[in-house]
């Protein structure tokens, strides 16, 4: 069983930020359950974990980063998307910075067997300067990272880079 984590405060955002990720798992015949981060204390019973993104304005999770402290202890493979990427950085003492990017951008990345300059969909007002993560992208701000079992992308792979999610699930 895999775990999808919803970080949205607004219930209506589920359809936009969580359901498209669920659909990718469903289409691949992979079992999962979805929980809100406030209900997750430990992830040890799950195989893999995906932390989804949220809207530009729904940033309640930033006030509760301590609720993700399990990220420091687990050996389970975790993929962080946008908000999930920021959370990974912040749990490991990264710095939150402001930058708004909305829409399609070309980014040079090398993560989960997706390599080169690819078109990605951005939807963020913040990013993170990481401490002690392997940086898997080139450019002004960090787009993709890895630290042992943790993988993160600033963009939304569910929009145009579904293979990143699929390849993560195959690890």
């Amino acid at each position, binding site marked *: 069983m895999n775990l999808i984590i919803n970080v949205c405060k607004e219930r209506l955002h589920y359809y936009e930020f969580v359901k498209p990720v669920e659909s990718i798992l469903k289409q691949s015949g992979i079992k999962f359950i979805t929980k809100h981060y406030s209900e997750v204390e430990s992830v040890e019973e799950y195989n893999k974990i995906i932390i989804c993104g949220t809207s530009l304005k729904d940033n309640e999770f930033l006030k509760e980063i301590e609720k993700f402290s399990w990220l420091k202890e687990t050996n389970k493979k975790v993929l962080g998307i946008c908000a999930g990427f920021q959370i990974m950085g912040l749990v490991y003492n990264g710095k939150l910075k402001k930058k708004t990017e*909305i829409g399609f951008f070309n980014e040079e990345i090398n993560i989960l067997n997706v390599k080169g300059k690819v078109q990605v969909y951005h939807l963020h007002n913040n990013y993170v300067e990481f401490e002690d993560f392997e940086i898997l992208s080139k450019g002004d701000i960090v787009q993709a990272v890895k630290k042992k079992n943790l993988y993160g992308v600033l963009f939304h792979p569910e929009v145009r880079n579904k293979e990143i999610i699929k390849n993560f699930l195959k690890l």
Partner: protein
Amino acid sequence: MRLGVLFSGGKDSTYAAYLAFKKGYKLSCLISVFSKNQDSYMFHTPSISKVIKQASVMNIPILTVETNGEKEKELEDLKRIIEKAIEEFEIEGIVTGAVESVYQGTRIQNICNSLEIECFNPLWLKDQVELLNELIENKFEVILTSVAAFPLDESYLGKRIDKELVLKLRELNSKFKINIAGEGGEFESLVLNCPLFSQGLKVVSKTIKGSGNSFRMEVEVGNLLY
């Protein structure tokens, strides 16, 4: 949370509004932008009288604006009417029926972000067949009002979205790569009844224009009950 619905009167914006309502959000107003440009990238081009009729059976106030349909001017007009909705109805967010269009989605996200309100796109990346089936399950009465792709033709105008039509569209999708929910501009739709309506609407008159595989049916609607 009080929301404004970016409303065209078609299946996507109406279903998005329905999902917001079901999740407990207050639909404070509808916002409709009418483009004089029939090929607008941003907006469908419904007639004003139809959405006003729909708003009246939904018992929701509506704000309308007409735009010339020049690319960036359309966005200024949209921003201005959203600002008006914030002032008049104290909305804290917008809900849209965007499914795949990154062009539309990006521009609406930018406007909402600059006005510091939420932007909800509950149909984002939704599976097309799933969307049509949910409309049928939830008792949405929807007709096609325009077609713009081979092999769709005049005979599809006025057809209801039902199981039979979904089967037909799936068949055409596998043969001709038609986007079966119409988001690619293959067709446009009009909602005549749904759970948000206090009563249904009916077509009272229609005018059909077009040729080949591109037809548009302008309709006037009236209340089903008197």
